[in-house]
């Protein structure tokens, strides 16, 4: 592993999977890209010796030789993900695909860094990388050096966006490739919106989606962020989502994981104003040799904030999962109320799950609780259902759907909740077909 980390040829190789120098952009961008490049060459991939990455081995990434040729044309139809209506914004290999997109109506605004100028460009300069800093870890540096464009979704103040905004982040290629989606979400004061981000890509092909999302939520707003990770069966997905919450914000995220082979979701939320509430939910359904690592960081930077975390995993086959929940209560963040729960059901004897809370508390008048339970389906419950006539598989299916149920029940939008429930039931049937 150490040897791989110091192998500059693969570092260079991954850098070369990014844009070429024919798309220079403004000076500040070039400076930042160069800094990110240098940071990447210094840091490289996080190793399992790094405490924050100890359960997720990125060797597969280091061992893959990614193509440096860029996939020009992708079939338009591939950009659509079924079952989700509303406005769709399609990013194909990190670039906006106008052909397959239906942009959301005003007052929601969608702009792209490559075309931005004037005040718009100043917004990009201000927000881009203000949370996701290359120094956080090598993959942020790599994304910052390599993104081909940045999309900014803006919801102005005082607007309630009724229907979910759908983003489809689609990867296309025929040989191992890497993409670097980069998204900014800016919500003004006293607005509400639900954003659904779908990650999809080809099956049976090793590719890397290294995505970074930075959200900025204004005072008094309600924002729900749903990430549906349905990458291809051999995909490596590294998602780093950041959210910065002002005063009295209600923020909720859901990370729904069913695709990918090696998956890491970093969720970092900063409660930067008093009276805000962040709810982070997760549901992972894995089989085969899939690995999903959910890594959350709640930064209670101000007083009177609440955070709730509920992460659930259903693991079949030889799949594995990790949940790390870091809660940082900064000095002066009194009356913090943080609750963290992680639960996993192991559907096979070869599946495994690691959960670790990391609490750092520097204030004295706070409430922080955490709990985690990992184990097989409850034998007593199974027997009870069977004793009423339900077949073994039917009883198992009923219990797995029920296990996933309370995570989905938290979704605000009823229609979206129904869509996700149907999606999950279908997915759980896939798990049931796995050997136990």
């Amino acid at each position, binding site marked *: 592993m150490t040897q791989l980390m110091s192998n500059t040829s693969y570092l260079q190789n991954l850098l070369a999977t990014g844009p070429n120098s024919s798309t220079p952009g403004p000076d500040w961008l070039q400076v930042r890209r160069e800094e990110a490049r240098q940071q990447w060459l210094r840091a490289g991939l996080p190793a399992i010796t790094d405490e924050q990455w100890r359960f997720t081995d990125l060797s597969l990434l280091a061992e893959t030789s990614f193509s440096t040729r860029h996939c020009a044309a992708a079939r338009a139809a591939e950009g659509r993900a079924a079952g989700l209506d509303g406005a769709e914004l399609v990013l194909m290999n990190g670039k906006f695909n106008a052909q397959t997109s239906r942009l959301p109506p005003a007052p929601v605004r969608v702009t792209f860094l490559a075309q931005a100028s004037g005040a718009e460009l100043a917004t990009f300069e201000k927000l881009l990388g203000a949370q996701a800093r290359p120094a956080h870890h090598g993959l942020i540096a790599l994304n910052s050096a390599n993104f081909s464009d940045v999309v900014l979704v803006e919801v102005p103040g005082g607007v309630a966006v009724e229907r979910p905004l759908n983003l489809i982040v689609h990867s296309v290629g025929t040989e191992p490739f890497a993409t670097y989606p980069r998204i900014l979400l800016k919500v003004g004061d006293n607005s509400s919106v639900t954003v659904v981000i779908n990650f999809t890509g080809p099956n049976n092909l090793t590719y890397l989606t290294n995505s970074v999302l930075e959200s900025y939520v204004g005072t008094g707003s309600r924002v729900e962020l749903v990430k549906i990770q349905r990458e291809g069966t051999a995909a490596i997905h590294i998602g780093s989502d950041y959210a910065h919450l002002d005063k009295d914000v209600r923020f909720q995220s859901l990370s729904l994981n069913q695709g990918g082979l090696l998956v890491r979701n970093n969720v970092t939320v900063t409660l930067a104003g008093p009276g805000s509430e962040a709810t982070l939910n997760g549901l992972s359904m894995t089989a085969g040799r899939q690995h999903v690592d959910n890594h959350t960081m709640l930064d209670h930077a101000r007083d009177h904030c609440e955070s709730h975390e509920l992460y659930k995993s259903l693991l079949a086959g030889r799949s594995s999962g990790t949940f790390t929940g870091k809660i940082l209560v900064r000095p002066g963040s009194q009356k913090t109320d943080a609750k963290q729960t992680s639960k996993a059901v192991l559907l096979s004897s070869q599946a495994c799950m690691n959960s670790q809370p990391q609490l750092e508390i520097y204030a004295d008048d706070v409430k922080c609780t955490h709990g985690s339970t990992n184990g097989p389906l*409850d*034998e*007593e*419950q199974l*027997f*009870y*259902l*069977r*004793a*009423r*006539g*339900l*077949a*073994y598989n*039917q*009883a198992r299916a*009923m*219990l797995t*759907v*029920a*296990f996933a*149920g*309370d995570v989905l029940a938290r979704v605000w939008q009823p229609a979206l909740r129904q869509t996700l429930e149907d999606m999950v039931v279908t997915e759980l049937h896939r798990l049931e077909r796995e050997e136990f």
Partner: protein
Amino acid sequence: MSILEIKDLRAGIAGREILRGVNLTIAPGEVHAIMGPNGSGKSTLAQVLAGRDTYTVTGGTVRLNGRDLLDLSPEERACEGLFLAFQYPVEIPGVSTSYFLKAALNAVRKYHGEPELDAMDFLKLMKQKMKLLDMDAGFLSRAVNEGFSGGEKKRNEILQMAVLDPKLAVLDETDSGLDIDALRIVAGGVNSLRGADRGILVVTHYQRLLNYIVPDYVHVLRDGQIIKSGDKNLALELEARGYGWLEEPAGVH
């Protein structure tokens, strides 16, 4: 033909024999009570009949309506008409009572080649059965047994019995944890399900329940064997004198 025929049933857990040759026959229409001190094997018998695989059957036969029961899975036993009212009904968060009961009822119907009930017919049936147990409709939308009081859990068991309409109902300590009002309601529900085609086996530690569900036969289980059988008066005698006066059967120990 008898509904239940147990012959020389032996079963245990982790190499320890708990049932050591149980014999019991229940004819249609009969209510039998099994009484016995703690650790006599009452609950083991109930669980073994329902097919709980934590217990190993080491000998004997059990027939339900002439069919070998021990070869069947728990769900097949249920579909064949065996119902166990659990001593400790299990909480199942995330599964509503109505969804669960509809799935159970339709599983049994499917087993017998009958068409599944649709939502309307199911609801009609539920309303009728819930009246029997003095339960309100809000109950159906609650998760199975989750946060139920002791009385609600036991009523839910009898409701399930009423809906699934079994040939043989085994009630395991159905009176435990019930106050007198809940006991009356539960016993009333059970009594309404007494019938010429059904057998009922009541497993209980105390005679109290048998004031409300009056048995035709009472058996005393001790150290995994039935050591005495009689009519309802035997229960009264046990209540008055305890279990100590009963002689241990010859040849055991």
